[in-house]
């Protein structure tokens, strides 16, 4: 009887510490999440948002977004955007992490300095790249033209064939330092003696990379890839500020489409349906991610 009483007493104090934050997140994130699922099965627009006159319409909204066509483009764009961004961020981040892992004098300082690109508000980054990618005055075209690499200015943000890649470039720039940082930590935890004996056996840089570094780094790489996917898949600011989804939907992603349905067209239920598809995909990825890190968490 006594130990149980003790347990309840200590637990009670624990809840006082823990619960406020949990309740805060449940009210501001958990409840809206469920609300949004309900919303996606109703017929809510501006006329009945604040009233009780809402009807359940089954999967009607999901059918509508499929039929309207932009949804399909957005899914494909979001996937291209995410995969390309993450791939380049991880590769460049890895190369930079390897470079800075050679402990020269300024390595730590310079590596830290690169974080600036990650800390700048995305709205500012997007505006900055919009400026640099301007077709006439933009520094990108000016330099490429001066170097005779191109003969005509590239319509970075005005050409539907190029625009998606332009927003991807901006996003890669944002994410490189973060990937580099995580991979640096991974690299520094690798055992040194394996490399020493490989060097004694005459292994070159490439062989060490393929046979030692990558296999040992696999758990860290997987975590970085998953995190990158999760954070990139929900992209909003970069696309919204740089192109607003255009030209002709060529950069429309799921977040911007959901936002456009809800807050430009005020078709809240259609927006909710798009957002839920986004959420469902992320949820599955998150579950896989959580399984991967569960061992470390010890919960």
């Amino acid at each position, binding site marked *: 009887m006594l130990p149980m009483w003790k*347990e309840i007493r*200590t637990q009670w104090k*624990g*809840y006082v*510490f*823990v*619960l*406020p*934050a*949990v309740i*805060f*997140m449940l009210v*501001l994130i*958990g409840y*809206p999440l469920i*609300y*949004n699922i309900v919303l996606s099965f109703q017929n809510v627009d501006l006329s009945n948002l604040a009233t009780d006159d809402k009807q359940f319409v089954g999967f009607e909204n999901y059918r509508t977004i499929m039929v309207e066509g932009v949804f399909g483009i957005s899914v494909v764009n979001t996937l291209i955007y995410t995969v390309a961004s993450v791939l380049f961020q991880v590769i460049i981040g890895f190369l*930079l992490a390897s470079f*800075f892992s050679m*402990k*020269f004098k300024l390595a730590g300082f*310079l*590596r*830290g*300095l*690169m*974080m600036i*690109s990650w*800390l*700048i*508000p*995305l*709205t*500012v980054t997007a*505006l*900055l790249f919009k*400026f*640099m990618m*301007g077709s*006439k005055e933009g520094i990108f075209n000016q330099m490429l033209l001066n170097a005779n690499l191109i003969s005509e200015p590239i319509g970075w943000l005005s050409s539907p064939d190029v625009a998606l890649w332009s927003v991807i470039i901006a996003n890669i720039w944002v994410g490189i330092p973060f990937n580099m940082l995580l991979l640096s*930590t991974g690299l520094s935890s690798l055992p040194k003696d394996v490399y020493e004996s490989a060097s004694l056996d005459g292994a070159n840089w490439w062989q060490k990379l393929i046979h030692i570094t990558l296999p040992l780094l696999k758990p860290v790489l997987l975590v970085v890839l998953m995190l990158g996917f*999760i954070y990139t*898949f929900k992209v*909003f*600011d970069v696309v*919204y*500020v740089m192109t607003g989804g255009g030209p002709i939907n060529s950069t429309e992603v*799921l*977040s911007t489409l959901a*936002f456009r349905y809800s807050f430009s067209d005020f078709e809240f239920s259609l927006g*909710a349906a798009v*957002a839920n598809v986004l959420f469902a995909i*992320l*949820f599955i990825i*998150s579950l896989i991610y*959580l399984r991967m*890190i569960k061992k*470390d*968490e010890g*919960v």
Partner: protein
Amino acid sequence: MSKRKNWILSITGIVIVGLFLFPVYWMIITAFKTQNEVFQTPPTFFPQNFQLDSFLTVISGGVGQYFLNSVIIAGCATIVVLLLSVPSAYGLARFKVRGIGLMMLVFLVTQMLPATVVLTPLFVVFNNTGLLNTYVAPILATATLGVPFSVLLLRTFFMGIPKELEEAASIDGCGRLRAFLQVILPISLPSVLVCGAISFFFAWGDLIFSITFNRDQELWPLTAGIFNAIGRYGIEWNNLMAFATISVLPVIIIFVLLQKHLVEGLVSGSVK
């Protein structure tokens, strides 16, 4: 490592970082150029007629109010985050609370959630509670970005503190709360600062919550102001870049002050 190699690597490093951060340099120097010089071919890599007019233009265009709003929103959001997440992380690290796995899951999942999913429901909730077009709406919404991150980071930190410290304190007659306040908090200050800074950055960078919940321009933060200025200033890039430079300034100052702690904290807070 030989002195020569050290030099070569350092110079290579400076070149790489210089190239990588070129956009930031380009932003700052464009702010000091005249409108004519911005459109000059070939482009100038340092302002020929160094001038402050763009800064004066955006300041008279109301950048001060936006700045103040950003400080209010991000500052309050940071306070909310710390008040909630420090005790919560401590509880999760020290008490054998039932359902701890479930609560950890709440934080892990909410950290990964896209803002668009909660946007409309929050809009309705804030509308019903009369919080639309107030500072409270973006403060609460942006605090949800910092809480999970901070809880997860600080929990890892608290678990690393030896239990003996609090036990010694309780022998001295301290209660649990006092032990937490007087023993644990002081030694956790660097980690708490990191969480505060990151939460501040999250809130400072928010665009979507502010433009959705506040139609009233008087309450807009810098990010919303910039987005709006794109329409107002068009291709007056020197003005826009002055606006951008002002928005980035506080972030860079905080970063420089806390650099070492921030880099370490970011790693442990993001992976867990």
